């Protein structure tokens, strides 16, 4: 990750604090990477799939914990 991307990550982690996620850094980093990889893609559906998978992973952990 470049310095600007690390800066974005830092801000996002602070911003998602209220969501009480078990591993916010992993989720936010995953979303940022997906967005960076597809920054110039017109068809956003593959990006949406990647984001949904990331969110499902978080949910799986949370539901498993509960």
């Amino acid at each position, binding site marked *: 990750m470049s310095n600007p991307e690390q800066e*974005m990550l830092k801000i996002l982690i602070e911003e998602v604090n209220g969501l009480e996620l078990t591993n916010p850094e992993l989720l936010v980093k995953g979303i940022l990477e997906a967005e960076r990889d597809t*920054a110039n893609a017109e068809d956003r559906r593959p990006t949406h799939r990647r984001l949904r998978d990331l969110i499902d992973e978080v949910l799986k952990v*949370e539901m498993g914990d509960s």
Partner: protein
Amino acid sequence: MLRVRSLDVENFGPYYGLQSINFGGKDGVIVVFGENMRGKTSLLNAIRFALFGKILGRGEREIEAHKLLNLQAKKEGASKFTVSLRLEKDGTMYDIVRSCNAPDTDNSEITIETVLFVGGEPQSQNRTAAILAELLPEQISRFFLFDGELLQQYEELLLDESEAARGIRESIESILGLPVLIHGREDLATILDDVRRAETRSAKKHKATEALASQLEILNAKLLTAKEQAKQIKNEIAELTKQREETEDLLGRSAKIEALLARRNSIEEDIDSLETQQEELSQSLSKMLAVSWHWPLIEGLNGRKRKLTNEYVELRGQIKAIERESHLKDLRSTAKKESKCPVCFGVVNPDADLEFSNRSAIRGDFSVLQTREEQVLGQINLLNQLTLDDHGPAAVEVSRQLHQLKMELQVKRTDHGDVMAQLLTSPTKEVEGARQTLGHIIAAVQKHKATLAVVQKEINDFESSIATAQQKLRATGEPSLSLETRRREIVEGLRDAFARAVDRYRDELRGKVEADASELFKKLTTEPDYERLVINKNYGLQIQHKDGFMVEVRSSGAEHIVALSLVGALQANAPLRGPLFIDSPFGRLDENHVERVVRSLPDMAKQVVLLVYKKEMSEHVARDMLKSKLLSEYELKRISAIHTEIERFSGDGL
């Protein structure tokens, strides 16, 4: 870090045959010297063509690629040009080979072919487009490949409502990486619509939540319709904005035509005046040179003239003395003959001795002296006819002035050629009616924006109603909904977090760009009273004086320095670090500023390529200011008007 390693052009623009530049793999500056019309801008265009398949003319207008086929090659029957660009990013080599083939004279079958090798492996056409778009997105290319003459565009950033400012601001935010966050916010908003629907579907299956679910279903449907409507209006505004830019461009070109005509007339007047001066000086020099054979003899001839003049003065004295004596003798003779003085009429004794000498002898001396006097006078006149002034230094000065005039004429004729070329490609009839069209477009945009505001308010109201309904749904405590509700909460939270992050990151970036641009500006400016630069929301930069006020009116040189400071600051803060190719960067700067900018170039980007003409920046400035950071120097050498060759004349530090 993206680095340009090498560029090969074959029959492209003024480059006949295969010509290459090796940019190497080290950090530093490469200078390419080339006078006007030798192909500096064509080198930038070669890189643009390789990366984006596009070629830009003056005013950033796109030029049809096939027009760049070298004319010498075309005369010899060639129909194809090729550009090969080697890039390096994070240790991987990317070789792009793009060619344009126009075999028919009517250009009906133009083909452009692109082949990309990554690490030596050829890529499919689909992958090629995607990889190139990722390597260097076209939208941000203006910060890597730029025309120094267009730096004044950044002044637009100071005008809040300018369309040009909006375009540049978007490019700036793109290079700074903001689209990653903006896309994240938008993608999460789309996902949120889906998970909301899933939550509602789930709620409908249970009696306790069925009514709320139905209410949510209606609200979600209305929200989606409103969002779709907003999207459509935004697209229409974007389309109208594009049309507005094109129309304004057309009107701008109309104004530009008038400006070009005025400029052409002014240049032609200058050329006439310079040609007259040149003619006068040439004639003056010719006259001087016609007697130039005298110059080595001048000292001897002047000595001879001085001698003859002295002799003449002496002869004149002797002749006058004889004339005086002869006159006295005549008086005496008369007095003796008439026994009376002819002057005072007194009585004269006839026996008095009044004879002094032999009259014929006097006459004889007189005749010799007169003959000699005539000879001396003749020689003096002859010498006077020769120009005996030493015109050597004057001729050297006239020759220098003549050379200077020729140089000025050459520059004026080049400018004239440029202006005429622009005039020939400018539209004339197209501008008719454009003003009226612009009025319609502006009215339509205003109407769409008003509608959008109404729709946006509806969206906010629906969002608020949905949030209330969702709270009620959660309050029912239905256990089977927990997964869908949690999913919706996470997506909603993420969307809001990304929305806030966009604003925070944007503010932080502005602060960083302002600080870095100020630091660079202080290094570049020669004005010690300028304290710093202050950024606005468009990334426009204003100069703050040490007494606290903003400098409202800036010179073109100051504008240039501010724009270079912005470019340097953007490079420092961008996720993508890349090369800096600058065409004619110093046109509006004095020598002191040029030296400061050149010295600071290695701080602005790791790889800098300057495309300059020598009057803009001399070789010694590049060498003195850059020292070991100057990697190599190239020269664009004229072979003919349609044939330039690239020649490296210094530098082995690649």
